[in-house]
């Protein structure tokens, strides 16, 4: 990434070169300064935001929040509403950590959903519909991946083109009509609860759990972080960067296919205009969850919290009977604040530490 030197010169007087930041030190420092603990701090912050939203809700509608059954049910509503977008965000987090971006997720959900609900597909039953949605998602994701990895297109452009084209194809297939799902199994997914927890929320938690394991415990995850952190270094270490990039977009497509089934079940129908602007919500959720837009860093748990925070805000505005316009403004503000916090962290923490004599000798220069 080329940073113009003008910027460098402007930044430097405030503090110091980034590599000199004590916050970048490894073990032996307290958790609130240690760079490695940054995700934990952020997640605690997001939990704090959720608690704050809860408190605001309780303040506005004490009548509702005094009822424990209602509160538990409301939490389930929040999780259900977060489910489809959350699944997409898990895929998006992988793509962004791997140094890319996927603008086509909303369009791919629409395409997968429409393809899975054509009369021809529905004749194969629920399994056929699920298979179709997932296959279409993966297939379109592979096209994205091929354009980025082998066509050398910038991810923004490649997936923007896919966004436009997939919406077009979805409109073509559906004839711009809303396609009703007649499959009882598919339609029941959104209504099903297991041990009182909505099945959609369980699907989200399972996908997020698998995503967490994939990112943190497998060679696939290690490759993702390496490629996003420094693609050239990964290539010269013998990692198949192009092949892996393909897989990342396919993974995002897979998540879109799953989300398409979830949304189809919720609406008992599909249409070409479904999941409008999901790409922006997913990117925003990943970013407030601490995923670096330049790649190489991010967490699944953070993204999950990001999605739930957004969902909780929507829920709160509905409860308080406030207009969605204000809600969108608040969401915009939250994105800005989250990113500002990320930037301010280093200088403010180190200045605070210096003032209070909390830093020790620099270990290695």
């Amino acid at each position, binding site marked *: 990434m080329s940073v113009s030197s003008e910027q460098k010169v402007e930044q430097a007087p405030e*503090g110091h070169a980034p590599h000199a930041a*004590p916050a970048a030190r490894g073990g032996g420092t307290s958790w609130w300064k240690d760079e490695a603990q940054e995700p934990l701090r952020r997640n605690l912050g997001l939990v704090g935001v959720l608690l704050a939203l809860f408190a605001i809700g309780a303040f506005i509608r004490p009548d509702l929040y005094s009822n424990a059954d209602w509160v538990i049910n409301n939490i389930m509503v929040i999780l259900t509403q977060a489910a489809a977008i959350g699944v997409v965000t898990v895929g998006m987090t992988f793509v962004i950590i791997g140094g890319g971006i996927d603008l086509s997720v909303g369009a791919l959900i629409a395409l997968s959903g429409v393809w899975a609900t054509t009369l021809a597909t529905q004749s194969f039953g629920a399994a056929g519909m699920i298979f179709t949605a997932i296959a279409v998602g993966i297939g379109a994701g592979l096209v994205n991946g091929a354009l980025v990895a082998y066509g050398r297109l910038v991810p923004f452009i490649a997936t923007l083109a896919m966004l436009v084209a997939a919406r077009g194809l979805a409109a073509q297939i559906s004839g711009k009509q809303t396609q009703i799902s007649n499959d009882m199994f598919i339609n029941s997914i959104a209504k099903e609860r297991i041990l009182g927890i909505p099945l959609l929320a369980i699907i989200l938690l399972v996908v997020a759990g698998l995503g967490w394991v994939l990112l943190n415990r*497998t*060679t696939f*995850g*290690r490759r993702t972080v390496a490629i996003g952190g*420094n693609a050239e*270094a990964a290539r010269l270490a013998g990692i198949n960067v192009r092949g892996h990039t393909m897989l990342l977009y396919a993974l995002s497509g897979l998540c879109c296919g799953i989300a398409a089934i979830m949304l189809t079940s919720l609406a008992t129908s599909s249409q070409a205009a479904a999941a409008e602007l999901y790409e922006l919500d997913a990117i925003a959720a990943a970013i407030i969850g601490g995923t670096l837009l330049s790649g190489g860093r991010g967490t699944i748990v953070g993204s999950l919290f990001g999605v739930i925070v957004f969902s909780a805000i929507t829920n709160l505005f509905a409860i308080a009977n406030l207009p969605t316009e204000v809600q969108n403004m608040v969401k915009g503000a939250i994105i800005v604040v989250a990113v500002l916090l990320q930037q301010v962290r280093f200088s403010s923490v180190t200045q605070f530490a210096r003032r209070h004599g909390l830093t020790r000798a620099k270990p290695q220069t």
Partner: protein
Amino acid sequence: MNEQPAGAAAANTGEVVLRLSDVVKTFPGVRALDGVELEVRAGEVHCLLGQNGAGKSTLIKVLAGVHRPDSGDVQWLGEQVAFSGPQAAMKAGIATIYQELDLVDYLTVAENVYLGHEPRSLGFVHKGQAARQARELLGRLGHGEIPPHRLVKSLPAAGKQIVSMARALSHSAKLIIMDEPSAVLAHDEVGNLFRIIRELTAQGIAVVYISHRLEEIREIGDRVTVLKDGRTSAVNLPARTTPTRDLVSRMTGRSIEYVFPPRPDTEPGEKLLEVRGLGRSGEFAGVDLDVHSGEIVGIAGLVGSGRSELLETVFGARQAEAGTVVMDGRGLPPGNVAAAVRAGLGMAPEERKSQALLLGQPIYRNMTLTNFSTYATAGFTDTGKEQAEAMRVADQLELRPRDVRRAVRTLSGGNQQKVVVGRWLLGGTRLLLLDEPTRGVDVGARAELYQVIRDLAANGVGVLLVSSEVPEVLGLSDRVLVMREGRVVRTAPATELSEEDVLDLVMAGSLTAATTEEVAA
């Protein structure tokens, strides 16, 4: 001010333009400058010497107005000053040419020269005037041939440096600070740089010159100030006559410069690598070379001689257009890094930070970047085992710090290079390609790296290394290949070649060789 430099009488005739006394600058957890003295006279080339981390960069930034000192005096043209920022220092006549040149790639030469102070009226930029003036400044620097309307992006590194200097002149700078200007230049271009510096000083401009290369300081410098651990350990030494031993000992507290480990008496083992007729159009052609087990083969050549490109092609990072690369008797597919790695090749590339390291990641993850999947079970990584293995190699390489969970960003250049070498050790590499292994590595850590490389060879690893520094190629290698303009012009045991021989070979036939020798004479 205390000693009269014998070989630099001219320098002392100039008046003092800059005087620093007892300058202190601290950052959280480190005293970067801890009482620095500096005196620069008009028309002199004042050299700053010091190891990495000695405080040179911080000192430059204090002079450039980027950092404000915590305490101490900065006197500029006889007045005490405290620059509010880089613009203020620039206005006062102090220009800084950083190592990473601060030019805007997609602006023209003229636009870069006058960036921020374009000749204008009523808010409109006089493009023609800017171009004319820029041409004039470039002419003053002896480079009137650089067209002012060219995009800076299309210029070579040396050309960009000239543009930076033209920018300094456009601000009527009285002091130009150059941070390792020769690092990006080939040998013949350094001669040209020196000619420009001499012309600048003849006009009364003072130059503060930072370099790791002692021979350059001898050639261009008038006086030397040595920094060590944020303090000045010597001020105003005569650049030409101070013995190397003294300079090095003041930088390091040691009195050695390069120490190369002794060559073993044993004969090299079986042939590992066989390259025949390798070529890429416009880069190099018809290269034959062999590397045996336990042997260190060095490639000497100028930047642009095709040496780095050759190394990358052997490794598969560039696709060969002609010829074959054979490892252990088996041909490697061209342009396939993964296959080369599987066959036992490893490379430490020239740009460590951008080509080799994940700076924000822990040491152990950087070390296991090539082979983390070999510790994995069914795709699940085993970080415990990775850390243990990384720790073992860290001990072997005497990596500091030992804590392999620390981010690589916090390590010094020498230790970062050890991480890259350690990566290939862990990967079981039997043929290591090293491109500029000691670039940005300070003198003390160099000796350690040399020992590491020699130890690798003693354990049967074959090493193919490229370096801009001829003494390094000669001192470290068993056999030396000299490259010129994409061809191997000489292959000989290192002991049969002298530094002068190699320099003759790499420069013979190049158009600028004559001027370089003139300057050196």
